[in-house]
């Protein structure tokens, strides 16, 4: 099986996991999760140099921080499918006494999670600390992050973006999910941000764009280029243009499914578009 076919199979299963998690508890965030399925699958299966087991310090391995924590369904699915915890545990998403809280947290000890996120705009600062700790420790592995585009409206991001280039944190690759949507509508309607590329560049970052952010080959190619830009004295930003709700036709190109679960019929329709590949949990 080709590498891409293998990754596509994981993506299809991850999409099923996302739909089934949010459907079961009638809550959660499927739209952004689906839009980032290919990115997460590529990151955890090809891009990151990571250990099979989990420890909090993550010495001598690449680290990932999810800043827009509401897309926990895709994060949990990919972590489980990567072996950090049993896939059956996806059954407990958002239930009482679960390690799979509505938004990711370290508090319940879920392997794979290194910081709580959900209150937006905090992930890049945390990643900067982890990246600087790596430098202090002589650890040459990288730190990856993911942020929503709407999330960039939070001011703390810009403190972090300014700091990252000023302090030459060049072991960081921050990816922004440019799906153009947020809860109240399109980002252009809610609060137009102008050129995000121009803003990062003005703050001294190296910026790369992945136009087809739901295409695995484009992601692998773009992230390889991003990796090649690390270690050159500048932080690296990847602008990943994705389609919210990707892979489930009626959820695509709209903010309507930001934080809404499918009903029984919608679930069946979504699953029919994504036939089982690795086995449901």
């Amino acid at each position, binding site marked *: 099986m080709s590498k891409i076919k293998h990754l596509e199979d994981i993506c299809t299963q991850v999409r099923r996991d996302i739909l089934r998690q949010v459907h079961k508890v009638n809550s959660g965030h499927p739209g952004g999760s689906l839009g980032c399925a290919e990115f997460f699958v590529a990151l955890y299966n090809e891009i990151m140099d990571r250990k099979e087991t989990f420890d909090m310090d993550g010495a001598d391995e690449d680290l990932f921080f999810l800043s827009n924590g509401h897309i926990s369904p895709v994060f949990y699915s990919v972590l489980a499918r990567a072996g950090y915890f049993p896939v059956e545990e996806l059954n407990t998403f958002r239930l009482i006494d679960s390690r799979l809280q509505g938004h990711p947290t370290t508090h319940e000890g879920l392997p794979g999670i290194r910081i709580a*996120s959900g*209150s937006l705009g905090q992930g890049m*600062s945390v990643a*900067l600390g982890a990246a*600087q*700790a790596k430098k*202090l420790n002589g650890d040459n592995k990288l730190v990856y992050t993911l942020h929503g585009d709407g999330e960039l409206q939070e001011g*703390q991001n810009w403190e972090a973006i300014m700091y990252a280039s000023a302090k030459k944190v060049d072991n960081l690759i921050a990816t922004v999910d440019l799906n153009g949507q947020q809860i109240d509508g399109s980002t252009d309607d809610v609060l137009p941000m102008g050129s995000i590329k121009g803003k990062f560049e003005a703050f001294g970052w190296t910026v790369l764009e992945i136009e087809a952010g739901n295409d695995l080959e484009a992601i692998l190619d773009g992230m390889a280029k991003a990796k090649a830009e690390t270690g050159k004295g500048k932080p690296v930003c990847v602008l990943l243009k994705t389609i919210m709700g990707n892979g489930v036709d009626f959820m695509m190109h709209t903010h309507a499914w930001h934080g809404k679960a499918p009903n029984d019929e919608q679930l069946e329709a979504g699953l029919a578009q994504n036939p089982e590949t690795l086995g449901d949990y």
Partner: protein
Amino acid sequence: MKTYTYTEKKDTRSGFGAGLTELGRTNPNVVALCADLIGSLKMNDFIKENPERFFQIGIAEANMMGIAAGLTIGGKIPFTGTFANFATGRVYDQIRQSIAYSDKNVKICASHAGLTLGEDGATHQILEDIGLMKMLPGMVVINPCDYNQTKAATIAIAEYEGPVYLRFGRPSVPIFTPENQKFEIGKAIQLTEGNDVTIVATGHLVWEALEASKVLHAAGISAEVINIHTIKPLDDDAILTSVSKTGCIVTAEEHNILGGLGESVARVLATKLPTPQEFVGTNDTFGESGTPAQLMEKYGLNSAIIVEKAKKAIARK
């Protein structure tokens, strides 16, 4: 009655600086962060000796708290430095999510707490920080009383695994605790023995409580003064043991009585040993510009008010 004297006054923030400098020499995992207030936090010596372990964040406290949380992931023990107002209220959600809820081993070190930073006025005089921090699950809250104790507390919190809020201040206050006294988190220190009233105080009001006990002694009242340097976890036993003997209590703090040490003590007493209690602290108010002594007088934080409240508490027995 045991009496306390002092030969020198110093700011507690300098105790923090000295403690941090010592940690720089003894604990290679300790790192320091500052949001453009190196001189005010007395971090110069640490920085001079360990430039690679210091992070100048700029005027960006939210970013500082997140970076501190991230540094723990590589095994570092970050000490953040800024004014108490900017170390708590300004960054409450960052502390809540990225540090407290994420169980990160960050030491939030806050100078210029309370009214006695003086002339800068109410924008900088936070009187709510103890309340904000003690409400966060898992957060330890420490308010040492003098230079020596602040230095000892700074060193001690590096050995403790978990988030800590360490509060200290700008004014010069008497040094009366022994040099190199070991600091035990959560363990109150009884300073005088007495039978008529318990006075529990935190921060530099401990000295005011000792001054009050001298005045009370002259009036034939024996006061038991307890230094509550750790507001959370609170030393319930020390308080209960004392009031079971004295039958009444005064709490004293440079903080709003809503949400401070006094309310923590009241909770313990209400559930275990209901006791007449009087509160010394600010009462639901902002501060203003003035000298520390003027402010302590105007807002009722000095030994005279502690004497008055002690008599009132005794009368309520």
